[in-house]
């Protein structure tokens, strides 16, 4: 295990970003679940448009194109728009006495924090553990593989590489 400062900084940023995204998703999905659209209101029309755009975009990538996490970033503006346009969640539970609501909140908070913790642990142990030191990739995306070149017998190929940092895995 190494703990270099830039490595910790990367980790902090990644975990912070994931936590912020999860909180954003929760805060958007709660009013969405309780949303009763009334389309004579302009705000609700706008919100519906944002929902349709986001869902259509995601469906396009999942069904027709390829899905990668970075493609999802573009629905962020739609989510912010939803946050602004959606009315505060109105549920029947609001009429229930305050005592009952107080009991519910610790559970919701626990669920949210548990999800965040699990994600943080997951990130910590998997995707964060790889650092590219030096690389030359193909011009094609990884899943399409590179075009192979034929080398005739007796050929020697040489290439020099400089490693700015130590590495422990090398593949060609």
């Amino acid at each position, binding site marked *: 295990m190494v703990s270099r400062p830039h490595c910790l900084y990367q980790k902090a940023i990644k975990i912070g970003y994931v936590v912020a995204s999860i909180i954003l998703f929760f805060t958007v999905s709660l009013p969405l679940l309780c949303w009763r659209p009334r389309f004579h209101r302009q705000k609700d029309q706008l919100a519906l448009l944002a929902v349709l755009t986001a869902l259509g975009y995601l469906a396009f990538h999942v069904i027709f194109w390829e899905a990668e996490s970075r493609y999802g970033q573009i629905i962020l503006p739609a989510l912010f728009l939803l946050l602004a346009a959606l009315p505060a969640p109105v549920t029947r539970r609001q009429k229930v006495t305050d005592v009952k609501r107080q009991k519910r909140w610790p559970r919701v908070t626990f669920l949210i924090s548990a999800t965040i913790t699990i994600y943080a642990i997951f990130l910590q142990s998997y995707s964060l553990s790889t650092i590219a030191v030096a690389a030359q990739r193909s011009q094609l995306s990884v899943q399409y593989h590179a075009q192979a070149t034929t080398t005739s017998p007796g050929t020697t190929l040489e290439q020099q590489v400089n490693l700015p940092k130590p590495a422990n895995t090398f593949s*060609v």
Partner: protein
Amino acid sequence: MTITLQSLQSAHVWTLTEKADEFILKQPLPAGSYQIVIQNQGLVPQLIDLVQTNNYTLAPFPITINQLQNKNVSLIYFFEWLNMKPS
């Protein structure tokens, strides 16, 4: 086909092992300069993943194919640091 990695500082040579469709070396490598050498000593042509462009210079050092330099071609390589759990 053999692929070796040579440290230009210590002149140490490691031989890569074939795994699926790529050659892998799992070995702590200190920072510094290295030379990748691929030799096809067999009798049949072999396929190698190369990235090739018409006009763009790729990796910081050009590839040398049979003593012939070509700065628009590069091997596809990947040096990474994996945090392995102490076991």
